[in-house]
């Protein structure tokens, strides 16, 4: 993917519901970091929920309608592209737009539902693509700290890279773009097995037992491969891997707390920002970056 160069780089921004509640630190750190790299985000006016998991698992037409309302707004507001930092929102928006433009019967159904015409394909980017478009050189140029004592397990989860023929930016089984971004901060990355294994996603409340089991396996695999921190790019993954460690400690006695950061927070640390500015203090598992020592204490 070629980085865009010159001028003021601007992207449309679809925050998604988590960014204004359980993942407010992801929103905060994204805006701080992107601003620092000279890029601005224009928030989509009056955006609504993408329909999330609950939409597509119960009503296909409702799911497409909810997602496409936002694509319609982006078009009306003159945006050519939108950044969706939540992997689930990203996936819903990109899949619904793909279905709309590739199945004429779905297109006319959704056009009738929303009383509009869809003509323009809006570019939908996740945060990994955003960094790739900005160019990794920018991170290196602006780096204030080299995070060389961090061994990072890059966790993609399920929805960032699948289905690869529609998301079209990395490999569905062995993606590497996050590693390249993390390495631009000076941190090291580890080779591990669970980078695209599911954390249990939306079952976090109704079947917490499943989420705790799956998330535990992911964390254990990261530790077994030498990681001392995990980096994610999805609010749902973060909730399951960070907050659910509370339950994990009860279900798996002896579980050692393991810090999980948003990718934007890691990049922010390398740009010289502190934990509070980036919202890292809002995590359940504490993480303090010291130039030489990583301190990890109970939340």
């Amino acid at each position, binding site marked *: 993917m070629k980085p865009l160069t010159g001028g003021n780089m601007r992207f449309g921004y679809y925050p998604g*519901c*988590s960014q*204004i*509640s*359980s993942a*407010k630190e992801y929103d905060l750190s994204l805006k701080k970091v992107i601003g620092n790299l000279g890029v601005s985000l224009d928030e989509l006016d*009056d*955006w*609504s*929920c993408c*329909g*999330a*998991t*609950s*939409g*597509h*698992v*119960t*009503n*296909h*037409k*409702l799911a497409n*309608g*909810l997602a496409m*309302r936002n694509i319609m707004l982006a078009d009306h507001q003159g945006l050519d592209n939108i950044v969706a930092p939540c992997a689930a929102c990203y996936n819903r928006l990109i899949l619904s737009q793909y279905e709309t433009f590739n199945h004429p019967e779905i297109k006319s159904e959704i056009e009738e*539902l*929303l009383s509009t015409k869809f003509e323009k394909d809006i570019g939908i980017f996740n945060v990994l693509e955003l960094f790739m478009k900005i160019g990794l050189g920018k991170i290196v140029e602006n780096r204030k700290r080299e995070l060389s004592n961090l061994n990072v397990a890059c966790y993609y*989860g*399920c*929805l960032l890279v*699948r*289905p*690869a023929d529609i998301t079209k930016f990395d490999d*569905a*089984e062995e993606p590497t773009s996050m590693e390249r971004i993390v390495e631009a901060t000076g941190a090291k990355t580890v080779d591990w097995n669970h980078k*695209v*294994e*599911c954390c*249990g*996603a*939306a*079952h976090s*409340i*109704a*079947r*917490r037992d*499943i989420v705790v089991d*799956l998330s535990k396996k992911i964390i254990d695999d990261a530790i077994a491969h030498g990681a001392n921190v995990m980096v994610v790019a999805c609010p749902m993954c973060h909730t399951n891997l960070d*907050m659910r460690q*509370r*339950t994990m400690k009860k279900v798996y006695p002896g579980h050692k707390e393991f810090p999980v950061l948003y990718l934007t927070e890691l990049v922010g640390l390398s740009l010289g920002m502190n934990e509070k500015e980036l919202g890292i203090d*809002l995590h*359940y598992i504490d993480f303090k970056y010291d130039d030489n020592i990583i301190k990890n204490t109970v*939340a």
Partner: protein
Amino acid sequence: MSLCYQCGKCSAGCPIRFYMDIAPNKVVRLIQLGLYDEALKSSTPWLCAGCLTCSARCPNNFDLAKFMDAVREIALEKGVEVKEKDILSFHEAFLDQIKMHGRSYEVGLVAEYKMKTLNLLQDVDSAPGMFFKGKLGIMPHNIEDKKSVRDIFKKTSKK
């Protein structure tokens, strides 16, 4: 559906297989054989997390994750009793918040979910922490044009 030749690769890689009553490829097989009732009452479609691992790995490009969406939707339309009631309650409570506010409202979601399932004590350990860290807003985030979202619900409702 005829694309599936029952190699079982989907079930081998499914992270949730061990919690399901029937392996995902067997749900496809039941439907291929016309045994709809057995497929529709299975817990498998409801436990499917939609992670798309199966769809990514299928050697014959069968989109099983999307197929599971369809199985769930048909089960709901036919009024089949859902084995994973809490999961369905969660989805209903989630969508009710969107219908009311246009965006997710976690406090309302949790309240409605608890009313539906009577799991009153679940998650009481994490909620105070989330309030303390300012993550759970007491007030919902309402969008301006709530009517447009309600209309989407109204026009796509099957009830």
